[in-house]
C-alpha cells in the first residue's frame, strides 16, 4: 500500500489530436499538412470567415467514440457541441467549438503500473473540440518582435481526455501518459510522433493546499519534471506558513520551473453556450458497431503474449508498450522460438535502439531472424550476435556479411580444444589454484581461451573443454 505522505493528487487533461483522420473536424481540409508551407491547407470554415458554417466530420465522432470505448467510458445517448468564447489570435472565430454538458463519453478508467502495483486512474470524460491555429515566434515568445499565425492546424479534431485526480506521484502521471499514448496508437487514429499530437495540462494539489493547473507541458518527461517541481514548491509554501492558492501556472521547460500565470480571480468567463450551428447528435446507437472494430488493446495483448508464447510478463509488458514493437516481435516469434525471440527483440534490440534514440523502423525483421538463426546454428556466439546487431544499426549491411567481415564465425571443436590445452600449459598457476579448490581460477583460463580464439569461441564450450582436460589430466 502506497502511503502518499504529502497527499499528492494529480489529474491530467490531455489534448489528443486525431491526426490519422483524413480531414479536419468541421471542414474538408486535409490533416496531412505537417510537411507543407504555412496556411496552405485552409478554407473559409477553418479560417472562420463570415458566412461559413461547420459540418461535423462523422469519422471524427466515430474515432472519439472508439477512444471512449477503449478507455472503458460510457458513450452518452446524445452529444452536443458548445462554444467557448475568448479572444486569441490563434482562434479565428473568437470562439472554440468544444463540448461542455453532454460530452461524447465519460466515466472510464486506465490501468497503470502504480507506486504499489496495478493502479486504476479514472477518466472523468473525453470530449471533442477543434484545434486552434499555431502561433510562430522568432526565437522566444517574450523576445520576438512579431507573431506569425499558421492556420493549417486550425480545425483539426482534438479529443480532450480528462482524468480524475487519481495519480499520487509524478511517476504515476508519466506512466498514465505513456499508457494513454500506447492505447491511442493501438486504435490507429493517432500518430504520436507528429508535432503537437499530444498536449498536456496538469492539475496538482498536496494536502493542505488548493490545486494549481500547469500549462505548456510538451512531453511526458516534461510533465514529470513540472510536477516534481510543483510538489517541492507547494510544500515550501506550506512549510513557511503560506497558503497554496488556486491558480494557473506556466511550465518553463528550459529552466524546469513553473511560473504563476493567473489566479482564480483572473480566470476567464468563457460564456459557454450550445453551438447553434451544429445540431445535437444522437450517438447511442453507434457504440456497438464501433466496439466491434476495437482492436486488441495493450493489456489484452500482453496477457496473450504470456499465454501464447510462454514469455515472461516483463518481456510481454515491454514488447506491448509500443504497438510497432509488439507487431515486430510477433512476426519474429512466428518463425523462431518465441522465448529466444523475446530475449533478442526485447532485451538486446530494444536496448540498442533506445541507446541510439532510434525506433524499430530502423531494423529489419529479416535481420533479427538471420542473427537468431546464426546463433541457434552455433555459427556465432552471443557476443558476436550483439556485435552484428550494433553494426547493423551503426553502419548497415547484412548479418552474414558483417559476420564474415568481422570474423565472427564461431570457432569450435579442435581449435577450441587446442586453445584450451595451450591455456592450461601456459597458466600453471591458475591450474594449481583450481586444483586447490579455487573455482574462480577457472575463469582466468576461460579468459585465456577466449583471447586465443579472438572471442570467437563459445564461453560455455571453452569452459566444458577446460574441465574435460583438467579432469582427465590428473
Amino acid at each position: 500500500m502506497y502511503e502518499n505522505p504529502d497527499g499528492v493528487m494529480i489529474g491530467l487533461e490531455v489534448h489528443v489530436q486525431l491526426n490519422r483522420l483524413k480531414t479536419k473536424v468541421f471542414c474538408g481540409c486535409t490533416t496531412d499538412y505537417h510537411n507543407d508551407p504555412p496556411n496552405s491547407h485552409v478554407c473559409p470554415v477553418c479560417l472562420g470567415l463570415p458566412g461559413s458554417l461547420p459540418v461535423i466530420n462523422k469519422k471524427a465522432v466515430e474515432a472519439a467514440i472508439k477512444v471512449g470505448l477503449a478507455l472503458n467510458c460510457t458513450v452518452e445517448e446524445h452529444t452536443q457541441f458548445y462554444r467557448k468564447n475568448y479572444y486569441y489570435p490563434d482562434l479565428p472565430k473568437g470562439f472554440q467549438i468544444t463540448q461542455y454538458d453532454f460530452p461524447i463519453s465519460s466515466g472510464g478508467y486506465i490501468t497503470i503500473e502504480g507506486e504499489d502495483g496495478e493502479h486504476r486512474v479514472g477518466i472523468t470524460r473525453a470530449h471533442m473540440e477543434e484545434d486552434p491555429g499555431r502561433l510562430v515566434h522568432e526565437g522566444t515568445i517574450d523576445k520576438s518582435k512579431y507573431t506569425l499565425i499558421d492556420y493549417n492546424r486550425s480545425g483539426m479534431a482534438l479529443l480532450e481526455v480528462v482524468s480524475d485526480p487519481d495519480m499520487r506521484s509524478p511517476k504515476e502521471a508519466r506512466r498514465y501518459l505513456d499508457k494513454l499514448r500506447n492505447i491511442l496508437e493501438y486504435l490507429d487514429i493517432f500518430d504520436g510522433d507528429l508535432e503537437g499530437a499530444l498536449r498536456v495540462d496538469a492539475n496538482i494539489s498536496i494536502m493542505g493546499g488548493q490545486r494549481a493547473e500547469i500549462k505548456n507541458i510538451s512531453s511526458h518527461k516534461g510533465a514529470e519534471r513540472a510536477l516534481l517541481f510543483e510538489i517541492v514548491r507547494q510544500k515550501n509554501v506550506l512549510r513557511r506558513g503560506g497558503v497554496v492558492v488556486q491558480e494557473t501556472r506556466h511550465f518553463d521547460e528550459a529552466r524546469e520551473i513553473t511560473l504563476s500565470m493567473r489566479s482564480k480571480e483572473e480566470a476567464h468567463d468563457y460564456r459557454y453556450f450550445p453551438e447553434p450551428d451544429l445540431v445535437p447528435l444522437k450517438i447511442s446507437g453507434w457504440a456497438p458497431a464501433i466496439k466491434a472494430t476495437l482492436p486488441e488493446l495493450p493489456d489484452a495483448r500482453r496477457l496473450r503474449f504470456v499465454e501464447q508464447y510462454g514469455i515472461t510478463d516483463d518481456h510481454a509488458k515491454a514488447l506491448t508498450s509500443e504497438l510497432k514493437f509488439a507487431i515486430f516481435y510477433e512476426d519474429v516469434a512466428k518463425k523462431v522460438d518465441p522465448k529466444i525471440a523475446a530475449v533478442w527483440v526485447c532485451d538486446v534490440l530494444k536496448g540498442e535502439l533506445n541507446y541510439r534514440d532510434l525506433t524499430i523502423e530502423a531494423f529489419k525483421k529479416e535481420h533479427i531472424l538471420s542473427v537468431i538463426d546464426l546463433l541457434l546454428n552455433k555459427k556465432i556466439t552471443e557476443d558476436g550476435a550483439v556485435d552484428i546487431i550494433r553494426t547493423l544499426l551503426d553502419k548497415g549491411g547484412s548479418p552474414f556479411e558483417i559476420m564474415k567481415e568481422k570474423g565472427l564465425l564461431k570457432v569450435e571443436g579442435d581449435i577450441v580444444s587446442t586453445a584450451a590445452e595451450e591455456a592450461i600449459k601456459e597458466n600453471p598457476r591458475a591450474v594449481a589454484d583450481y586444483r586447490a579448490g579455487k573455482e574462480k581460477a577457472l575463469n582466468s583460463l576461460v579468459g585465456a581461451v577466449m583471447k586465443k580464439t579472438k572471442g570467437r569461441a563459445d564461453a560455455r564450450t571453452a569452459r566444458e573443454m577446460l574441465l574435460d582436460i583438467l579432469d582427465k589430466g590428473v
Partner: protein
Amino acid sequence: MPHTKYALSAYYIIAMSEASSNLARFDGMRYGLRTEDHDWHTTFSHVRAEGFGDEVKRRILLGTYALSAGYLDKYYLKALKIRTLIKQDFEHAFKDADVLIAPTMPYPAFKIGEKIDDPISLYLADVETVPINLAGVPSISIPCGSSGGLPIGMQVIGKHFDEAAILRTAYTFEENTDFHKTEGS
C-alpha cells in the same frame, strides 16, 4: 397560441447572444479594417471600436451579458425553451389549419429616423414576425390594403416545408384582389 407573447423577448435574447459570439471573428486579423497599433489587445479592441456601429455594439454588449456566468440559464437557455414552446404552438395550430394569416407589422411604416433613439420601440416593430422566425416555419408577406396612404402587409404562414401552400394562398389572394396593384399615395 399561448406562448407567442414571449416571442419578442426570446427572439432578442437569442439573436443578441448569438450575435455577440458570431461577431467575435471581426478582429481585423485576417481581413477588413486594421488600425495602427502595436499589440494584439489594443489592435483588436480599436478595430472593433471603430468598425462597429451603435446598434451592433448595443447587441454585442447585451448578448455578452446574457451569456455571462450565472445568466446563461436565466436568459439564453430559457429563451431556447420558449422557442421550442412557440414551435409547438404553431404545430398545434396547424392541426386545424393549412395556413395562418396575421398582420406583418403592428402599424404602418414609420418615418426614417423616427425611432432611432428608442431601440425598444424599434424591436417592438418586429413583434408580428419574430414568432415565425423562432418557429422556423415559412411565411410570405403581401399587400392587403392601406391606411393614410401607407400600405398594409398581411403574412401568410405555413407548416414546416409547406412553402407551396403559402405561395398558392398568396397567389389566389392576389388573383382576387387589387391591393398589389395600388402604390401608396
